[in-house]
């Protein structure tokens, strides 16, 4: 049955939060099953999903949530969940499994103030390094980050399409302040969401779950198919899905995983370059708003500064290095203490030209960015 609603996305002015747009956008893109486990500040997404997704199941814990999602994904569903760091930490082994099995799914990660249980009702950008390194082997899980309320509508389909077309779990990073803050919004600005169509293996030759195409991605068949045997495994395996210790074919299969993600993950960012600018502000997520305000304030003072807002975070797009290379001075702004994005790009020793502004417990303020740019 067709589950897409063929109405136009919306008309009129409304007061809404980002969660509503994320869930509606996921459902329109074709995500059909939501697995929920409540955690602040992601529970609003669960609540909306319970009213919108064709199927919603309450899991008893986050490990079960991810395992159910993997099973549902293997059977041809397109599952979504939303969580925060404590839940993600429990999911990590299962995300490794789904990555190895090459099962599409979407995990919306709503960041809150850590470490540990931290402050569940305070926003943060605390989890990028964790997401970047959560796979054994350091392999990249495609990770997109919502930069503004428009992205709550635009990025879920991008993330879901990547999950399906690259056959991989995908993370959509956001924070409490994006999914829970309400704002006036003109619904007529929403574009159509194209439903994702899934291409299944149709040949008569025996299906091999891990025989990759020219893009490095194997074709998909749901487990339980009536014509072909489907073998899936989380252990090191050959193209047939048979466990192998370390045969050349099996190791090539393992090598293929990061390569297919790196090649096929869309690179999305906003770049506003000003002529004569000597400084580039680099940011992502909830701090993008403050950075845009800072750029506006600086421009009003006659100071030219450029802005890069990263929306694809993992794998790290090469383009970011190229953009950064053009500037003698770069200011990273993000809501954490460690400067996670800059250390992801440069390690723990930042180049001299790179400055950092960030803190915990409050959103980075435009004036803090302005101060650092002018310092």
């Amino acid at each position, binding site marked *: 049955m067709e589950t897409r609603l063929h109405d136009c996305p919306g008309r009129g002015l*409304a007061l809404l939060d980002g969660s*509503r747009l994320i869930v509606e956008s996921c459902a329109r893109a074709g995500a059909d099953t939501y697995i929920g486990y409540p955690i602040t500040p992601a529970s609003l997404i669960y609540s909306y999903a319970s009213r919108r997704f064709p199927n919603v*199941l309450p899991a008893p814990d986050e490990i*079960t949530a991810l*395992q159910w999602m993997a*099973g549902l994904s293997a*059977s041809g569903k397109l599952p979504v969940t939303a969580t925060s760091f404590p839940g993600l930490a429990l999911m990590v082994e299962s995300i490794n499994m789904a990555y190895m099995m090459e099962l599409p799914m979407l995990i919306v990660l709503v960041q809150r103030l850590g470490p540990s249980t931290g402050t569940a009702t305070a926003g943060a950008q605390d989890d990028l390094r964790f997401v970047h390194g959560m796979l054994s082997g350091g392999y990249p899980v495609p990770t997109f980050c919502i930069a503004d309320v428009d992205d709550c509508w635009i990025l879920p389909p991008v993330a879901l399409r990547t999950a399906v077309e690259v056959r991989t779990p995908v993370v959509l990073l956001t924070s409490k302040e994006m999914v829970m803050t309400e704002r006036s919004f003109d619904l007529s600005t929403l574009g159509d969401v194209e439903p994702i169509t899934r291409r299944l293996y149709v040949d008569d030759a025996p299906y091999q779950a891990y025989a990759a195409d020219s893009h490095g991605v194997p074709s998909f068949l749901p*487990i339980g198919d009536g014509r072909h045997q*489907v073998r899936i495994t989380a252990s090191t395996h050959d193209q047939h899905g048979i466990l192998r210790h370390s045969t050349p074919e099996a190791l090539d299969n393992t090598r293929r995983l990061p390569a297919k993600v790196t090649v096929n993950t869309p690179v999305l960012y906003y770049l506003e370059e000003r002529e004569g600018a000597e400084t580039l502000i680099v940011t992502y997520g909830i701090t993008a708003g403050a950075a845009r305000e800072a750029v506006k304030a600086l421009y009003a003072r006659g100071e030219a500064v450029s802005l890069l807002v990263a929306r694809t975070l993992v794998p790290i797009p090469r383009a970011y290095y190229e953009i950064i290379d053009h500037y003698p001075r770069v200011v990273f702004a993000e809501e954490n203490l460690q400067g996670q994005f800059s250390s992801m790009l440069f390690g723990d020793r930042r180049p001299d030209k790179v400055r950092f502004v960030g803190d915990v417990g409050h959103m980075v303020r435009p004036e803090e960015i302005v101060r650092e740019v002018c310092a």
Partner: protein
Amino acid sequence: MSEFLTGPDFPYCKGCGHHLIARNTVRALEALGRDPLDVILVTDIGCHGIVDRNFATHTIHGLHGRSVALGSGIAMGVPKDKQVVVFVGDGGATIGLQHLLEAARLNVDLTVVVHNNFVYGMTGGQPSGLTPCGFRTVITREGSPYPHHDLCRLAHDAGAPYARRLLGLGDFSKDLQEAFQIEGFALVEVLELCTSYGLKMNPELRLRELAEAVDYEPELWTGDQRPALRLEQEPPRSSLLSEGKFSTTEVRFASSLEICLSLVLGGSAGEGAQRAAELLAQAAIASGLHVTKKGSYPVTVGVGFSTAELIISRQPILFHGITHPDAVVITSEDGLAHNQARIRAMDGGTVWLDQRLEPPETKADVRVRDFRGRAGSRNAALYSLLTFVHETGVIPTRALLSAIRTSSIAEYVPDALLEPFEEGHDR
């Protein structure tokens, strides 16, 4: 050779009970006339889990202890005529006990076959939660001092329609057939001895004697037959952008606001501060303005502070944080405590304060009003914002009154509270 198998030999030690489980599983599936492609074999980590390659069914091999949850997801997603069989060891069953109990509780349509040889065989014979008291292992050389879980009884208590414990000797394919035919959750716990570690550490033991000695007797537990959990294809559901709970706002009022105003409302949880702020936000939209509304509160529900931050602006709002508010409205002690530092730091602007509260030191203009006395705790926040709007004129008071009267809380707000704010009313 059976059409369910890809080869004649299983990858197990000589004499291992896993052989019998695999062969009896094949016999049972054959006897039921299943097609290999109608069967999905889910395996856990452990010696039993390397049997995938021998089966011509669909196979999926996951993590240690998670196979029941993985199999549950598959059973919920595949068509009803598919047979989902989960192979798990005693170690995996106890790591993933929650998954097993949840599958029983929800009556997921799958059969879990527990290969219970009382030890973690693949890692060297360590004890598991199913190791019986007195059973010697490489870790408990004098015999395990702890009792074992009764897995079947646990599953039964969790709601499993079918749970059977049997000795893994001879032909038990009929028992497996019975389990495979259950529509819903079925557990079959097969007792066996690990030849490499179980027998080596307990050479005198016989399976039947052990079972009798430690209350591991074969038994069948049956429960109520309930519909199996299955994802049904639901009809399309309403868009979240047009559902009944969600409304759009028409611009029907005009505001004299020139640039931007930031407002902090501080109250107590459970007293409607967030809802009141939402109504003001909707009134601002109805007045042709942009608005953001951020909530701050502790993790507790109904206890502690509840602060709402609003930015009302003529221009689109890029940053919705408030460092130096233009206005602060405080209705309770909790709200004052949470915003005390911010009020003290104010260099200007205005603070509206309930008259029961101690005015903080500030350079802001402090206006003391009777919010709680006039409106009670339930409506103090709403009343305070009506007061704020009425005194500042940032948006027409009519806009907020209209937002309140058309909201879901209208019936809880007495007319007497709103009337003084009507145009022409003499307060």
